[in-house]
């Protein structure tokens, strides 16, 4: 046991390996937020009038809204007037092929392990890379287009597919949904758009990589995925940021629409800079993610591995509107040092015979606070709704906290809802068992944590699972081994 304590007490955290800054000239808006900035962003993007109107409406509503105080996190107030709302890597002209992408930028993405080069074809992942809110390059576009799949940056989509954007943008997360969603709606500068036509199974994983690069900026990207009848897509999202002493704001919105028999699988490995060991700096990650199972037999599945960010505030939700639709949420949230996470999900059962499953694993170490907050709602007409939720928390160290706030609201007597939660630490007997079989304490702890998170890790696509497991180990390094 004392050996274990020693291991726990070691605080030599490995450095955040994504913490460099790329020296790229950026085209920026001055700090501050006003209608003029919203107009500036819209003009920069050469957006049509309706888009500007949409942004302004969101902005005006945002001005009337208050910062939400209910999450179980504490952080200094964000000064919305000191943030630069637009920062784009300077580009001379429109890019026609990947060879024309700024070499500095390409190097950046290579460091991140996402090569924009066609070599990536081998791994079969199409990537849309977003740096400081602006989409840089999308790979495999043509191959996807052959099947009718649209996968491009949001700004491109607004120009080229206005009818789809007008129809779906804001249909799941309305422009005025909440404080940060409204802010995002007003100032989002880019993001990804993905459209899978009827009956098409997307042949490869689609992926977006987000990176905050410039100082003093916030990142506000917007993702929209529309899966038409009978289609399938698996979507990956990853994110990193440089190490800075200041807190940077990331307020994204992700919307998913799944029509009849469609299935969308959305996986996130969130690794924003978490701040240093004293809790200085780091990203404020205030994200609104919501999907709607609009059609019958549709399915939306959220899988997330949350290891980064100083403060996380995120609840990927599913509105189960179509009969027989399925919502899933798998999450591993790791907090270390001074990180705070308030994350969970919402499952809103509206259609008949809908099912949802929630598996949430929280791991807290250092002096961090980790909260699960979830809502399972069964509406009056949601006959035979079924939900199973499981939230387990693991505490590593006596300075951290683990909290659960599950809300369950049932208005239909044919519903069957179950919820379980446990909180514990790694048992001495478990460690002893491993030690006895020749594993040192550090390896034993790593093994046990891996087992603890396995149920969720198994849901991740192959490429991500490997990365996520490494991340898990790095995030907890020093605190457990």
């Amino acid at each position, binding site marked *: 046991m004392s050996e274990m304590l020693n291991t726990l007490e070691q605080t030599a955290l490995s450095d955040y390996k994504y913490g460099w800054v790329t020296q790229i000239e950026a085209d920026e808006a001055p700090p501050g937020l006003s209608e003029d900035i919203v107009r500036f962003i819209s003009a920069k993007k050469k957006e049509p009038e309706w888009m500007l109107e949409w942004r302004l409406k969101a902005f005006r509503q945002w001005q009337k809204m208050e910062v939400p105080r*209910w999450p179980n996190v504490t952080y200094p107030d964000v000064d919305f007037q000191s943030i630069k709302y637009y920062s784009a890597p300077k580009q001379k002209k429109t890019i026609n092929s990947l060879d024309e992408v700024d070499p500095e930028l390409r190097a950046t993405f290579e460091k991140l392990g996402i090569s924009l080069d066609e070599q990536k074809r081998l791994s079969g992942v199409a990537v849309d890379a977003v740096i400081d809110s602006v989409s840089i390059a999308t790979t495999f576009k043509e191959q996807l287009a052959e099947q009718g799949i649209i996968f491009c940056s949001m700004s491109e989509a607004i120009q080229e597919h206005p009818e789809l954007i007008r129809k779906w943008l804001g249909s799941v997360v309305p422009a005025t949904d909440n404080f940060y969603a409204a802010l995002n709606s007003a100032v989002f500068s880019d993001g990804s758009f993905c459209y899978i036509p009827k009956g098409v199974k997307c042949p490869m994983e689609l992926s977006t990589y987000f990176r905050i690069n410039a100082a003093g900026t916030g990142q506000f990207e917007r993702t929209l995925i529309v899966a038409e009848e009978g289609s399938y897509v698996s979507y990956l999202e990853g994110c990193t940021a440089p190490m800075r002493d200041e807190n940077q704001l990331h307020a994204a919105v992700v919307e998913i629409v799944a029509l009849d028999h469609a299935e969308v699988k959305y996986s996130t490995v969130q690794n924003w800079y978490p701040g240093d060991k004293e809790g200085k700096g780091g990203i404020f990650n205030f994200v609104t993610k919501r999907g709607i199972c609009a059609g019958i037999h549709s399915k939306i599945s959220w899988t997330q591995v949350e290891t980064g960010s100083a403060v996380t505030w995120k609840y990927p939700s599913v509105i189960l509107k179509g009969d027989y639709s399925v919502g899933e949420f798998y999450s591993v949230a790791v907090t270390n040092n001074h990180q705070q996470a308030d994350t969970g999900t919402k499952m809103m059962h509206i259609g008949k015979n809908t099912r949802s499953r929630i598996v949430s694993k929280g791991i807290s170490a250092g002096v961090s606070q980790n909260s699960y907050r979830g809502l399972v709602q069964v509406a*009056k007409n949601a006959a035979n709704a079924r939900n199973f939720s499981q939230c387990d*928390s693991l*505490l*590593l*160290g*006596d*300075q*951290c*906290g*683990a*909290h*659960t*706030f*599950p*809300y*369950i*609201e*049932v*208005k*239909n*007597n*044919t*519903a*069957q*809802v*179950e*919820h*379980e*939660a*446990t*909180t*514990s*630490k790694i048992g001495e007997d478990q460690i002893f068992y491993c030690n006895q079989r020749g594993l040192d304490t550090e390896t034993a702890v790593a093994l046990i944590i891996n087992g603890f998170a396995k149920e969720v890790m198994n849901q991740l696509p192959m490429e991500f699972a490997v990365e996520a497991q490494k991340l898990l180990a790095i995030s907890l390094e020093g605190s457990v081994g």
Partner: protein
Amino acid sequence: MSGLKEIIQEKISREPFAGNGVLKDFSEKGMELFREQGIPTVKHEEWKYTRIAAVLNSDFNYAANTSSVTKADVDAVRLPGHETANELVFINGIYHAEFSNIRSSSDALELLPLSEAVKGEYKKLVESNLGHSAGYHPDGINALSNAFAYDGLFIEVKKNKVPEHPLYCYYINDARSSSVLSQPRTLIHVGVNAQVVLVEEEITLGSSDSFINRVSELVVEENANVQLYKIQNEDVHSSCVKTTHVRQVGKSKVHSVTLTLNGGMIRNNLNFILEAPGCESHMYGLYCVKGTTHVDNHTIVDNVKPHCFSNELYKGIIDEQATGVFNGKIFVRKDAQKTNAYQSNKNVLLSENASVNTKPQLEIFADDVKCSHGCTIGRLDEESMFYLRARGIGEQEARALLLHAFAAEILNQIECKPIREYADKIISERLGFEL
């Protein structure tokens, strides 16, 4: 909020409290906080599912000292086993000695008005414990009770004594001529090695609206043993907010059972503050409601010190348009290592219009703990029904049998025999089960 305005008017016009400054300050602070906070709305996280403001809006009288209750009225509501119990009668929130029967000797049990207790040998005790619940319920409702605390009663269960008679407390609201708001307030001190059984029931006379805002604070010393039983079986005009706040300041054991059958809007706050190592708390609840009854159980277990154990089981049977709300909080403070805390909430919905909102909540700041919570919501198990039906038991009967079995797990936790039998009788009647 005309009714509440009147309450404040009444308070202001009342003679300034002449006694000890401590109580006066206390009630003034309560009034100030109430003015600031008002009646909590659904925007208040703790009142999200319970629209208390809607009930309190009607015209209530704060008729604290005027009542036409007679001995016959009291006789009509006595609980089984009263012949051998200490009976405490509160009418419109005020303790009435003339209707009460204290059978235990004064060296085992002592009753004093709070305004007296705050002066004498209990001064320190009252000062440090009265209003302790406000820290856990910093809302307008609790503040309102504080504002009127000077009408309260202090109960001392003496050190090393085991009063052979249980304490039966009747809180009678006389709503025969007009709507009544009452605010009974008690502070109960259970001395070292003492033992006590408390049974509480609210009764409303007449059919006007009645609202009881009751706060009971208990201080339980080393090796003491307390059993708390509450029976709530009123009509739809009667609403209440009941706060039972138990501080276990020494290694002690407290056992609580709350039964709810009928009422308007019922809110129960039950808090256990485990302030000494080795405390043990058991909390059981059964809400078996129908009609438009709204029952809301909020419980808190605050583990301040290590090595404590708490177990909580609340079960609900909800029929017709009734609503059940459950919120169970378990806090484990930094020093409270080796805490074991369990919580479970199980609900059966019997009708299409019944609903349940449940929120089990864990907030844990220590690592060497075992905490779990679970909750389920569903219908009666179809397989069990089938089993019984296949053996020739009619549908109604089978249903009653299963529901009674579901309820029995809680009923069996009542150790006081006459009360257990009484509870079983009224629950069986409700479920259509023949004992």
